[in-house]
């Protein structure tokens, strides 16, 4: 039984309404012109030197099964929007985070909660490094993030 058309739209409409009203500090909506692709900016609020004075751009892609299925979330690179350095973020913007995978995702999560999780993932990081095998992965990967079988090997970072 595929979710009825409009299932995702309805929910996203409600989320958008809420986002327009208020968003937590450090999170800003850039554009949400349809119910397929949204862009948001996030900043780290404390003085973590790795991310100080930087803003990062996130792209959310929603399938028609959202929120039963997780959205596809990646960082995008622009002249003034780098890809944050983090042992779980590849230099092409792909994020290895269990809550974005089918196993870790819960339909109760939403765009806002994902942004907050990423914010805190950055805040808590002290390692100035990319994931192991970043270069090879970035060069060879042709898969969409949701088709990559990440192995969540490290829950501490």
């Amino acid at each position, binding site marked *: *039984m595929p979710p009825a058309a409009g299932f995702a739209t*309805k929910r996203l409409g409600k989320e958008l309404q809420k986002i327009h009203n208020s968003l937590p500090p450090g999170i800003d909506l850039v554009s949400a012109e349809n119910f397929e692709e949204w862009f948001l900016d996030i900043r780290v609020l404390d003085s973590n030197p790795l991310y100080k004075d930087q803003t990062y751009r996130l792209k959310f892609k929603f399938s028609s099964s959202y929120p039963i299925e997780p959205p596809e979330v990646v960082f995008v690179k622009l002249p003034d929007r780098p890809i944050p350095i983090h042992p779980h973020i590849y230099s092409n913007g792909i994020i290895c985070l269990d809550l974005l995978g*089918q196993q870790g995702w*819960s*339909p*109760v999560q939403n765009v806002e909660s994902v942004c907050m999780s990423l914010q805190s993932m950055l805040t808590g990081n002290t390692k100035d490094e990319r994931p192991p095998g970043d270069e090879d992965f970035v060069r060879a990967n042709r898969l969409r993030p949701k088709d990559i079988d990440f192995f969540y090997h490290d829950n501490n970072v």
Partner: protein
Amino acid sequence: MDSDDDFMSAVSSEDDVLPDDSENEDMSDAEDFDFDDEPDPDLGMSKDFGVKKKVPFDINFKVFHPSDIQKQQDDLINEVNMILDISKEEAAILLRHFRWNKERLLEDSMDKQRQVFEAAGLAQTSAGPPRLETIPGFVCDICCEEGEGLQSFAIKCGHRYCVDCYRHYLSQKIRGEGEAARIQCPADGCNLIIDSRSLDLLVMPELTGRYHELLNRTYVEDKDTLKWCPAPDCQNAIECGVKKKELDKVVPTVACDCGHRFCFGCILNDHQPAPCELVKKWLKKCADDSETANWISANTKECPKCNSTIEKNGGCNHMTCRKCKHEFCWMCMGLWSEHGTSWYSCNRFEEKSGTEARDAQARSRVSLERYLHYYNRYANHEQSARLDKNIYQKTETKMVQLQKESGMSWIEVQYLNSASQALQTCRQTLMWTYAFAFYLARNNLTEIFEDNQKDLEMAVEALSGMFEKNVTELSDPKLKVEIMDKTAYCNKRRIILLEDTAANLAEGRWTFNVELTSGAAASSSHRR
């Protein structure tokens, strides 16, 4: 496979157990099984009709049909349900958590029920049966819907969502992810498992079918002693007590009621007498090397100094090895410097350096030739077995024809069927004897093995020859007797060979020229 038929009848009906002794292929000797944590299985297997002679390479196993699998699960669930005084659905969740080890489940639950329930994803409290509710003021956290009459559902954790979202969620899990036994509450971080009764209440009937199928599957997949029969469309499972660490001592071949014979250790087709690890090595080697090795053998030579393989792709005979810069003559393999002024025409065959280089070359080619020797024979039996299978399909027509032309009865032409079966199994065995032999170090045992192999091979080829005769010749009673004798002889030779190899394997007497990782059979003498 006649003995399989015995086996099947023994499984399906409990009473008429009179094993006929006509054609013992002896693979499925049904004896008393002794599995650790099983309630005595319902099949009438445990009566002692293990009157057949036990052969050392036989292992104990049992075939389970889908209904048996279901019944076993139900029995275990009922038992836990009664002892622990929890619902059947909860008992099932607990059992799956403990991989159907009932003893451990009961022991742990008595000691520390709280932790056990939590780890298994069960709620502590027991509530009534699952039901849909309409609660005033309820807002669904998934779709953010609210409103009068919005039906909602929650399992015991109390995380409540509307029925629509729950359905989407479950169908995504079942259909999209093939999940069944461990579907958790949709709430973030809630580990409670959704039980089958709640699920049946929520989803469409066509999905519950799939769900229960997936649940059933986990029963077999959770238990180390159970494996699915890998034959296409076969729904049976096989139970066998051989453990992974024993695989260097025994080749656990089992035969499903569907007729498929496979190795319980690695699920590949029957590969007696070679142990699983050698089979794996051999298949990998064949996949990697065979074509390459043939080509190398035909088209290349090796550098006389560093043994790099070199293909001459045109040009003169003056070779300079890319690797070690050794300069030599392609024709005589001798040093190029000794060619002096007679460049580009090699007439120096008698020279010492050339002779030595060619000898060295010959020696290093031996290993390649050795591999090809075994591979070609292995591949030949594989192909012949396929051809025999084609013939087997024609056998039936032959038998009918024979019945008509010679006036023999159905039972009287069965010898052709037996002969065809014998050919199949014997070729399968022969095929793997060559892979096995490839890894054997030379010693007396190996010689005995090769004698056995030769005997079986000759018998099989002879039978194969007789089997191909046309119907008029086949109806000759003399030939019939010959075929029957030869069939029996083939089967006997095969058993002798397998007995010998299995016994030596069990006692770790073989010396292999490769290291077997799992222990005792590892060799100390590397011959090459």
